[in-house]
């Protein structure tokens, strides 16, 4: 039995943060129903554009929304809204990422919904929280990276502030949302009561920086300084970073500089015997190291470093990675199929339970694909809305 079997999640959220939480809940066994606007659907179906499309929709939509159902409804239509309320009355979790005020206008805010279903776990994700001067601004990943100070941590000192090239804020906010939902569901098994769970992208991306922010708060508020070359982490000593070799790239994490000097046959590094210099003089050390490492092939360097237990690795791109046995042994890829026959290769849930890998071959839903079966499941057919009102 999957851990979240029998849990029903009603998901109003769009794009990535909320839906990525929904995906994880679905992977763990929950029934996740996307409530999508009739005719349009999750904006991610069209708007989140890459140059690769699957059946006219972005590959990204298919990756995020596999293993879910779609119920199309117009929330401004009274009859549709009544149906939605009936579904909510029987659900365990509701999720949304509307801007502050939208759910209130629809009459689906927590206080109202709690009256319909006191056991419901109601989870919302916002950009910047529900108060303060930024509360109505769009909660978009790059913009959150920009305002949170995060862009001063990656890349080298003289480069522009550099964003992380994956939607890290969305994903982290999604994991925090899932954590809050799961904790509240656990509590419900004891108290029999639901909860309101709130996360914001801003709080999530600050949490991600908790180690370095704590440093900033306590060291007289000194800003981070990225190393001039081969920066891996603004707060770490040489050699931490990625280096070019004769035929590729080599990553070196924390390591003893004089030991590296010996192993790599890099005489000029031998002088750095004082460990404090490994931070203070990291640019100088990294420059020497970078020049030296271009003189040999990655595998040749690894052959001397690995037996000495130095923390090092070859840098892979996806083409190289998928050829590796270490990758293939994970069985990380799954094939999912949409109801119109489209087959997509994507990644599976990264959590194993009782030694089992959780896979599902259910692809992303077509817009409104499950309206009929959901109306049956929730008894909406037997009680026509006109009679219920």
């Amino acid at each position, binding site marked *: 039995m999957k851990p979240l079997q029998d849990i029903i999640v009603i998901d109003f959220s769009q794009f990535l943060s909320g839906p990525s939480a929904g995906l994880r809940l679905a992977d763990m066994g929950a029934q996740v129903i996307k409530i999508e606007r009739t005719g349009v659907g999750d904006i991610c179906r069209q708007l989140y554009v890459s140059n690769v499309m699957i059946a006219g929709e972005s590959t990204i939509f298919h990756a995020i929304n596999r293993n879910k159902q779609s119920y199309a409804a117009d929330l401004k239509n009274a009859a549709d809204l009544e149906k939605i309320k009936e579904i909510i009355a029987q659900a365990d979790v509701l999720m949304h990422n509307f801007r502050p005020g939208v759910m209130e206008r629809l009459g689906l805010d927590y206080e109202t919904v709690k009256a319909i279903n006191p056991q419901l776990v109601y989870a919302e994700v916002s950009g910047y929280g529900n108060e303060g001067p930024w509360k109505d601004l769009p909660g978009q990943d790059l913009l959150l990276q*920009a305002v949170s100070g995060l862009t001063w941590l990656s*890349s080298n000192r003289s480069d522009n502030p550099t964003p992380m*090239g994956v939607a890290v804020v969305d994903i*982290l906010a999604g994991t925090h949302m899932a954590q809050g939902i799961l904790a509240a569901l656990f509590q419900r098994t*004891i108290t029999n009561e639901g909860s309101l769970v709130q996360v914001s992208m801003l709080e999530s991306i600050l949490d991600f920086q908790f180690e370095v922010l704590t440093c900033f708060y306590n060291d007289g508020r000194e800003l981070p300084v990225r190393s001039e070359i081969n920066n891996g982490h603004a707060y770490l000593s040489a050699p931490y970073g990625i280096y070019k070799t004769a035929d590729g790239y080599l990553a070196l994490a924390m390591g003893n500089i004089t030991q590296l000097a010996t192993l790599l046959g890099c005489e000029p590094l031998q002088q750095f015997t004082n460990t404090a210099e490994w931070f203070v003089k990291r640019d100088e050390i990294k420059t020497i190291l970078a020049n030296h490492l271009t003189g040999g092939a990655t595998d040749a360097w690894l052959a001397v470093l690995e037996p000495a237990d130095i923390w090092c690795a070859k840098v892979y791109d996806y083409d190289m*990675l998928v050829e590796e046995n270490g990758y293939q042994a994970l069985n990380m890829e799954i094939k999912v199929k949409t109801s119109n026959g489209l087959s997509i290769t994507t990644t599976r849930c990264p959590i194993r339970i*009782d030694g089992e890998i959780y896979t599902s071959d259910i692809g992303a839903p077509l817009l409104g694909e499950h309206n009929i079966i959901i109306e049956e499941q929730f008894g909406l057919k037997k009680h026509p809305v006109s009679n219920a009102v």
Partner: protein
Amino acid sequence: MSRLPLQGLLVLEFSQYLSGPSAGLRLADLGARVIKVERPQTGDAGRRLSIKDLWTDDSSLLFHTINRNKESYAADLKNPEDLALVKKLIEKADVLTHNFRPGIMEKIGLGYPEVKKLNDRIIYGAVSGYGKEGPWKNRPGQDLLLQSMSGLAYTTGNAKDNPMPFGLAIADNLCGSQLVQGILSALIRRQKTGTGALVEVSLLESLLDFQFELLTTYHSSKKLPKRSNVNNGHPLLNAPYGIYATTNGYLAIAMVDLKQLAKAIDCNELMAYDQKEAFSLRDEIKLVLAKHLAMQPAAFWLEKLHAADLWAMEVLDWDQLTKHEAYTTLQMEQTITTSKGAKITTTRCPIRINGERLFAAKPAPQLGEHTEAINKELIGKEQRIG
């Protein structure tokens, strides 16, 4: 806060450094009682790992950051008497986490099958670098190495840069998050079935999951994602997505229609591009934009962009951010007094429950600080043997 969601749960944390302990921190902030089981004299290796040489009491500030709101129980797992006491703790626990390399817990006699015999309701969370099978299983599970091996280093920076790591421990952090999700899901099931679970996560699988959009796109296109030549923000996204220099500071611009953008910032040269070219000509478009934006201050542009409802923000550093009302409104900071009286300011849990922020005053423990109390309370033992 009247009741925290995980109140009443007992977590034993054998984990060290960041991935496992970050999960323990989240469980603690959500209400669980988290006891670190640490080796006498040395403890969690994270106690000795500092950044900027910052120390509080006897451990690094970093350790205090990751391990606040926890207790510490010192035990030598190679000593049979200590091990027997630890097994008594395991009998009382709801959750156990560890991030030893594959095989170590089994050697100690605390592999999942043995632990399950002691307590079949326990949720046993194991973190590894690369999974417990395959040729990489004994490699060091270190964050930068995982970023490098998982393809992630090709997402950040510009096309001509070296592969560029994220400047934070993303693999550790995400893996900790997955561990929390797995543990909580298993606890929910336990309430129904009465049985525990083995929850396994790895840094590598967590980082691949993180890249699921890029990997799915890669599998369909068979083409490697490409960072843009200039102002890269995300390898899959069109111009203008990225960060741009102005006369005083930087501006981030996300997904925006090119014509609307050109109009808002009054850039004729940009008008020449069709939205359909926003991906194929993104380098050229970004160069045009970069040149134009370099002529005025960030605030000048931001006003125009926001007036047109376009997705843009100023780039801030922590100095600017922490003085901003949008930040102070969050009340993200909390000050904690350590058991020796030092004060540390750190962040709080990012999740709010029933409208309340979750603050926690309990500091990180001294090594073995709670051993005696725990022996007395949970094991019913007044004094340690020998």
